[in-house]
């Protein structure tokens, strides 16, 4: 009897299923991890509410189109407008609190997070749209299958790359030669005070990131990507510093000759394994990824084919 009802109320079923799957997609993609963002509970509620709206918008578009109500498509543009606003909101909030971080996220990381928030809403809308489309077009269980498939696909979409994909992470000893501080062979900075040198010697940990390819070399040289690494490691392991201690700043410096990135961090919790995990797991920023080798190869081929 339940199934009969589903068959007879096709539109309602399509809309309800689409909305539910859209919302589900947003819930699945809403994660508070070590970044502690979005914060519980209010930050989450905002995104769940927007996820519901996204789901509903995607879902109602399909029955409307089936009824030849083509203006319904403008609904979707309304949604796009709304979600761009989400991106602005995230950017503003994070930029505002970034000044108050001991180790700031940096503009590139914030932009990356904001884009992800916008993108997730679109994935929620697409999930709802597909679920609703198949439920309306074929039958309710087709919508169910489409919904589950799009959940899986959107999950794959949202899994970004990490530092460990493009660079080899190794621990390296910290060397202090008078005031000069080195991580491995990479010169980091000049530390003036004996007191600070002592703290760095005791608390500091050094890492060297060796790029795996020429493209990776450009990515880890990006200042935004470096700041993101420092921020993430400092968030996960704590940071041994306070405001007004500019001598104790975690920093990342490039070994110009080798293209390796030297990393000095001052964790509260000096645990080699955890620190290694933290560095390897830093997400790659979209703003930092470049593919110069591909472009150069293409232009070379073109030049050859043109004689």
């Amino acid at each position, binding site marked *: 009897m339940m199934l009969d009802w589903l068959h007879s109320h096709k539109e309602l079923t399509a809309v309800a299923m689409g909305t539910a799957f859209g919302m589900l997609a947003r819930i699945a993609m809403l994660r508070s991890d070590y970044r502690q963002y979005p914060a519980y509970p209010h930050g989450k509620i905002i995104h769940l509410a927007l996820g519901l709206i996204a789901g509903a918008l995607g879902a109602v578009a399909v029955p409307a189109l089936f009824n030849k109500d083509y203006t319904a498509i403008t609904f979707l543009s309304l949604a796009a407008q709304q979600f761009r606003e989400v991106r602005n909101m995230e950017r503003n909030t994070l930029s505002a609190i970034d000044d108050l971080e001991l180790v700031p996220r940096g503009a590139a990381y914030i932009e990356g997070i904001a884009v992800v928030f916008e993108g997730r809403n679109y994935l929620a809308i697409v999930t709802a749209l597909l679920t609703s489309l198949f439920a309306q077009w074929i039958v309710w269980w087709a919508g169910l299958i489409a919904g589950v498939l799009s959940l899986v696909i959107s999950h794959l979409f949202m899994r970004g790359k990490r530092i460990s994909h493009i660079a080899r992470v190794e621990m390296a000893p910290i060397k202090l030669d008078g*005031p000069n501080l080195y991580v491995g062979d990479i010169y980091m900075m000049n530390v003036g005070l004996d007191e600070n040198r002592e703290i760095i010697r005791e608390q500091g940990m050094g890492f060297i990131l060796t790029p795996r390819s020429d493209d990776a070399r450009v990515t880890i040289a990006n200042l935004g990507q470096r700041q993101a690494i420092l921020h993430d490691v400092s968030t996960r392991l704590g940071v041994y510093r306070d405001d007004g201690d*500019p*001598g104790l700043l975690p920093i990342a410096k490039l070994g110009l000759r080798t293209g390796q990135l030297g990393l000095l961090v001052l964790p509260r919790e000096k645990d080699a394994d955890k620190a290694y995990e933290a560095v390897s797991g830093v997400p790659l920023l979209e703003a930092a990824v470049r593919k110069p080798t591909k472009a150069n190869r293409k232009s070379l081929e073109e030049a050859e084919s043109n004689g």
Partner: protein
Amino acid sequence: MARIVGIVTTRREEVGGGAPIFYAEDREGLQQVAHLLEKILDCAAHTINEDLFIIVERE
């Protein structure tokens, strides 16, 4: 660009110029003055040589 906001030295005759100069009796005093200045000015102390520190402000 970084700006030199203070100079701490034990050799008075070796320095001069536009930044405030602080004179210390010995190297221990040098560390102390540099430490205080670092905390007060929220600027980093850097060693040029063992008798000469500069306090540097970064943006």
